[in-house]
């Protein structure tokens, strides 16, 4: 049974980790495409259309990856975690149902018009379709984050015979951690997309494709990143304070605090030892963790040892994965801050004649290579952030209501292992193909070749005409 639990957890983690990569791109990329489209409508400048038509291809690819990997999860609730819906189905059910009916259909239907309708529908309808797809992705975030947040900070329900029944839907949807998690995720998506666009644009530039379309995309991306990263840090801080109030065990794991202490240091490095219940090799800044979490240098942080049952079982998560994921997320965020602000500073420099800003031309060669290296940095930060919050909720599946162990299906472990291996193989191959194809499309675009192929040669000819117009 323990093997089944562990394997089912790894399988769901693999699934949801793979899945979240693509919505993280499509949420903000949808809005970015709408921005490109509206700028084109307003100015009639080709560069906006060039940016649109390149990135809509990446959008289509990412969207397909997100859709198919998402379907898997709705089935895994049943195949691996029947206890979840049996216990909290009355609450999770309506939230998931609203996601399907208000978001999925909207996205799926208008995506067709957005991708293939350019020459078939009036301009306003194509713009509207683009906007509705972006709106659909955001509705999807709203509902799924409402459910996920409810699992962290459940309220608005009563338990009758071991089954949760809703008493207050407003309280369920707008539960205490929901607003923070929603904005944290939205901003994460915008930052991921900003660095993706900046990285791929820098790559295209480096291999000789510095067209106006590339420049305008890169500028949009870097400005967005520079504006949003401080907001994200602020929202992240507020989210942390919220977590401290509702899930103190998670905070203790994030900060690596075993015994309740005042003036806790911010640990830059430590090796948490679950068995000995202490950290090795601690390097920290005295008092800073307390200051960040309580805004007082001698504020109290509850330690992990407060969350142990009388019989000695831990009621807190495993410390090392939470502790480290949190540091990877924060570290990536700080790197994003430094890179985006330095980029803006370089772009703001006066040009050689002294009569204008250098803009994206002001970014030196080595800096562009750095941007290419940061292309998927948003993925790393987003995954690390989700690992922090999700592993941090363990051993609970729904905080204080249902443990992960209670929800798992009694499927034989070898069966779970076989499907896990199959899923992992598919995910690794697809991830490789996805990244390869993005850079392949960038190379083709840089060489000025059409990336419009897909249907029959006659159609290809037609679409090339459209692209060149």
């Amino acid at each position: 049974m323990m093997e089944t639990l562990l394997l089912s957890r790894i399988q769901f983690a693999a699934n949801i980790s793979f899945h979240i990569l693509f919505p993280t791109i499509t949420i903000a990329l949808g809005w970015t495409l709408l921005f490109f489209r509206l700028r084109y409508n307003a100015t009639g400048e080709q560069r906006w259309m060039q940016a649109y038509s390149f990135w809509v291809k990446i959008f289509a690819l990412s969207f397909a990856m997100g859709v198919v990997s998402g379907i898997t999860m709705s089935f895994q609730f049943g195949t691996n975690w029947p206890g979840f819906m049996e216990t909290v189905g009355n609450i999770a059910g309506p939230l998931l149902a609203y996601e399907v009916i208000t978001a999925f259909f909207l996205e799926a239907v208008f995506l067709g018009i957005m991708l293939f309708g350019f020459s078939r529908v009036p301009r306003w309808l194509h713009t509207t379709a683009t906007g509705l797809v972006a709106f659909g992705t955001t509705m999807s975030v709203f509902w799924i984050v409402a459910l996920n947040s409810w699992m962290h900070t459940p309220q608005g329900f009563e338990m009758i015979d071991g089954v949760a029944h809703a008493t207050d839907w407003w309280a369920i949807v707008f539960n205490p951690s929901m607003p923070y998690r929603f904005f944290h995720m939205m901003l994460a998506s915008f930052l991921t997309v900003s660095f993706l666009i900046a990285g791929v644009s820098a790559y295209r530039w480096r291999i000789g494709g510095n067209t106006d379309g590339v420049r305008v995309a890169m500028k949009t991306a870097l400005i967005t990143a520079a504006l949003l990263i401080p907001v994200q840090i602020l929202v992240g801080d507020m989210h942390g304070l919220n977590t401290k109030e509702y899930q103190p065990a998670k905070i203790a794991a994030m900060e690596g605090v075993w015994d309740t202490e005042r003036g806790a240091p911010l640990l830059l490095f430590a090796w948490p030892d679950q068995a000995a219940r202490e950290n090795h090799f601690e390097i920290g800044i005295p008092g800073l963790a307390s200051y960040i979490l309580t805004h007082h240098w001698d504020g109290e942080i509850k330690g992990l040892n407060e969350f142990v049952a009388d019989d000695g079982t831990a009621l807190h998560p495993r410390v090392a994965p939470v502790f480290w994921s949190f540091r990877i997320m924060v570290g990536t965020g700080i790197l994003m801050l430094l890179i985006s602000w330095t980029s803006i500073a370089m772009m703001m420099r006066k040009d050689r004649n002294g009569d204008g800003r250098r803009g994206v031309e002001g970014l030196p060669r080595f800096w562009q290579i750095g941007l290419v290296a940061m292309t998927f940095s948003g993925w790393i930060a987003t995954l690390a952030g989700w690992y922090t919050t999700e592993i941090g909720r363990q051993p609970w599946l729904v905080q204080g209501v249902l443990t992960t162990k209670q929800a798992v299906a009694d499927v034989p472990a070898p069966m779970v292992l076989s499907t896990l291996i199959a899923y992992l193989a598919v995910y690794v191959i697809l991830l490789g193909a996805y990244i390869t194809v993005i850079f392949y499309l960038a190379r083709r675009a840089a060489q000025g070749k059409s990336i419009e192929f897909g249907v029959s040669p006659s159609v290809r000819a037609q679409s090339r005409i459209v692209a060149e117009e």
Partner: protein
Amino acid sequence: MDMFGDPAIWLPFVFASLMGLSILIYVILDGYDLGVGVLFPFATDDEKDKMIASIGPFWDANETWLVLAVGLLLVAFPAAHGTILTSLYLPVAVLMIGLIMRGVAFEFRAKAPAAYKRLWNNVFFTGSLMSALSQGFMLGMYVMGLDYTLGHFAFAVLTAVFLTVGYSFIGATWVIHKADEHLQRKAIDWAKGGIWGLMLGIGAISLATPFVSARIFGKWFEFPYLLWLAPLPILSGLIVIWLWRMLQQMPFENDRRSWLPFVAASSLWTLAFGGMAYSFYPYVVPEKLTIYDAASAPESLFIILIGTCVVLPTIIGYTFLAYYIFRGKATELRYD
């Protein structure tokens, strides 16, 4: 919410109907695009492009009906959801991997380097085939009461093959409508072959179902229930004859009524599905759990119902819009 009587009675019924409707729409809509994938090996490279173009703008929305169907099972009948899906653990995994493969192949075959296009075409075919076979297998196991014995397994393998042939049949009728000239004539031949699979499939399930359950046997063959069911096989038989004659004469002059085979095929699906729904009602897990025992709390179902009543007509509306925009022959489709 009590104005229609006891909500613990009518709400599960309404949700079972909604779920049935989603499954029916799914097997028709994703049925045709899965079928197009299954037919891939019979087409030339140029025809493959046209076939993809005929389903490109629609497949994603088609697949969403599956998400809605499993979502409704999940939210309205949580107890049944666990029982059904854990006992179908492996076929579900095959379905998932199949859907992933074909879904991404749509994009990759158009965007990956040309040398890999053949590979992604194969992925598209394999994924479509896996999805169709696993759905047919699950249907067979479901009819047999989700109970693994050698006989049931053999029956499920049989339904897997028949459903796949049925999907390729409805896929062929879709291609008849969306293609012209050589490909259309080819699709007419595919449809002529596929219709046999469909008939055998419906026949096998119809023959097997009443003998698995005495209750269903009673519903089918005892007077007066016999009269309720009688129109289904009679109508199905008439439609098959009509379809057969029509396919012999196609293509019609000026490509008139090229949509008729697809509509006829959809009607056949609907009748077969109606027969199944009639047989299994009121059970959601055959012979074990009724929709009334498995349903969620009425207050939760009610809040979903309100949203559904508002949103479902909108969804149907903009689905029609999409089909209207992309009407006509698929060769006119532009990836732009």
